[in-house]
């Protein structure tokens, strides 16, 4: 039996459940020579903000046990440069393209979505209310249910395309944030963004990142992500996209069993650009071996 790998996120059907996460895949062209972009379940772009952002001071990354900290600071060329320089190539890819949107104010987010709506050619938006590395916006939105609901509703009003709200794990109750996104009209939530973390160079008695703290990603955070998906997916009726530390098919299957409808590979692509395709091949093989017909059936297979 050939398993059906398609998954649905509101109005959007993905050809398969394995996407590549925002911030780890640039705007696609960076990996063109190494990855078959057309075979991706979805390509989540690097965040787009209305204005260009140079990003944070350096160093911006440091390795930690089975993980890494980053403090990039949403470095991106800005909305107009994205539309002129990145969007044409993105439109040409055979995979769904979901634009990650960030900003400092509600108006920032709306400007980005409205402008790209006017251009067309993308499959949806992932709303980044969970970046730990910027002073305004980001976490400030994502930790407050009422702000998440209001922002989601404001963006819902300007697009009928797939609207995904990306959640932070840096909250007491991720289920309440997921519910707020659902109430605001989101088609799905994705979780988790990075965990706030810090590493210190003991010899120099200085933080290893210029900003002091950063966002932790990689296999070290996978159990946190799986638990977040488990709780969020039981709190809302909309689909949950799981990410955090996926390196192989079993890691992705943990997320799908926990309740995710789809997954994203992030840091795993840095380590092995072939990671997403390996993960997809492994999911397919597992479904064949286990006699599972559809990806959406996997969530129901978790035993108590």
């Amino acid at each position, binding site marked *: 039996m050939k398993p059906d790998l398609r998954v649905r996120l509101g109005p959007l059907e993905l050809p398969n459940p394995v996407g590549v996460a925002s911030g780890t895949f640039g705007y696609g062209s960076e990996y063109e020579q190494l990855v078959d972009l057309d075979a991706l379940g979805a390509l989540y772009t690097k965040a787009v903000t209305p204005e260009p952002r140079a990003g944070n001071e350096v160093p911006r990354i440091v*390795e930690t046990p089975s993980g*890494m900290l980053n403090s990039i600071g949403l470095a991106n060329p800005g909305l107009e440069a994205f539309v002129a320089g990145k969007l044409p190539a993105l439109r040409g890819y055979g995979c769904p393209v979901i634009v990650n949107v960030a900003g400092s104010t509600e108006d920032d987010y709306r400007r980005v979505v409205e402008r790209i709506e006017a251009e067309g050619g993308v499959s949806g938006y992932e709303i980044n209310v969970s970046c730990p590395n910027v002073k305004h916006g980001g976490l400030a939105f994502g930790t407050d249910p009422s702000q998440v609901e209001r922002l989601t509703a404001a963006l819902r009003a300007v697009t009928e395309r797939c609207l995904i709200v990306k959640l932070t794990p840096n909250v007491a109750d991720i289920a309440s944030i997921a519910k707020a996104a659902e109430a605001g009209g989101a088609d799905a939530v994705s979780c988790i963004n990075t965990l706030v973390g810090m590493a210190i160079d003991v010899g120099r008695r200085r933080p290893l990142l210029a900003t002091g703290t950063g966002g932790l990603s990689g296999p070290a955070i996978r159990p946190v992500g799986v638990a977040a998906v488990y709780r969020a997916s039981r709190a809302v009726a909309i689909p949950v996209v799981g990410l955090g530390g996926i390196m192989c098919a079993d890691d992705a299957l943990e997320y799908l069993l926990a309740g995710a409808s789809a997954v994203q590979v992030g840091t795993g692509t840095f380590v092995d650009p072939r990671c997403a395709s390996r993960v997809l091949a492994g999911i397919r093989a597992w479904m064949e071996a286990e006699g599972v017909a559809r990806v959406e059936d996997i969530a129901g297979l978790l035993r108590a």
Partner: protein
Amino acid sequence: MSGVDSPPPADYGGRGGAVKQFDAAIVVNRSIAPSWRQIVVEWDRSAGRPSPGQFFTFRASSSTDPLLRRPLAFAGFEPDTSRASAVYEVRGPATRLLAELAPGSRVDLLGPLGRAFPPLAGGERPLLAGGGIGLGPLLFLAGELAGSGSSQKGDPAESSSAPGPLLGLGFRTAAAVPDLELPPAATICTDDGSRGFHGTVVDWLGGQPPQLARVYACGPAAMLAAIARLVRGRGWTASLSAEQWMACGVGACMGCALPRADGRGYLRVCTDGPVFNSPSPDGAEIDWAAAGPGGRPARNPASENEPGARP
């Protein structure tokens, strides 16, 4: 917008060709000095041909700790056999794993990456300066400029009348000079005077005739910053290979940024560099005073980035 969409400087070298990820057979992996090693691998013939100044990333184990790939600069490439080499310092967990791989085993490689040293303008006699483990790319470049083995068609340096490059290699002491075949004309510089020129490679460079106006260098960040000052004072130009902690190596993550000298944001070492010109015609120059990993002087550029590894 710097660093994110900066157009490629027109004057950079590199032969282009495909960036590929492949499992390479290790031919040689041997000690060449205390804690320094040389690795020679079978380079995939369908991958782009490496140029001096470019690098590859490696993953020596499928373990998640250490997690990230590490960059290494090419120290040589033989097109006939398609063998590529690098020199590296065993500095942290990833290079320790690499050091354990025996000839015949395989290692996950990705490359060639980054911008190469730009070609010479006709008739120039270049000054090549390597500091510490940063000697690798300069040995590669010296070999190409001398036309030995892997000269390329159309290279101005190929003209037989041009005098060969002057190569200075700096080490702390004579004991640190690696067991490598060095060009006979190379000047060994030691900080303690235990061999060759007594002084740093920057001191050696400063003693060269002012008409030799073209410098290529790779080494610790403090050395590169000193060379950037020297060339500015003399009206020379330099092509300097920078280092920064790196995650993706292909320009996607914006992690390996270094600040621009003009204050207009950042440049990526992996794709805007690692070779940067000083001064740069298009202003895309690094603030060399702040160019070490962690914004502090690097210990051994062109060797492994070991994010988080303590000396």
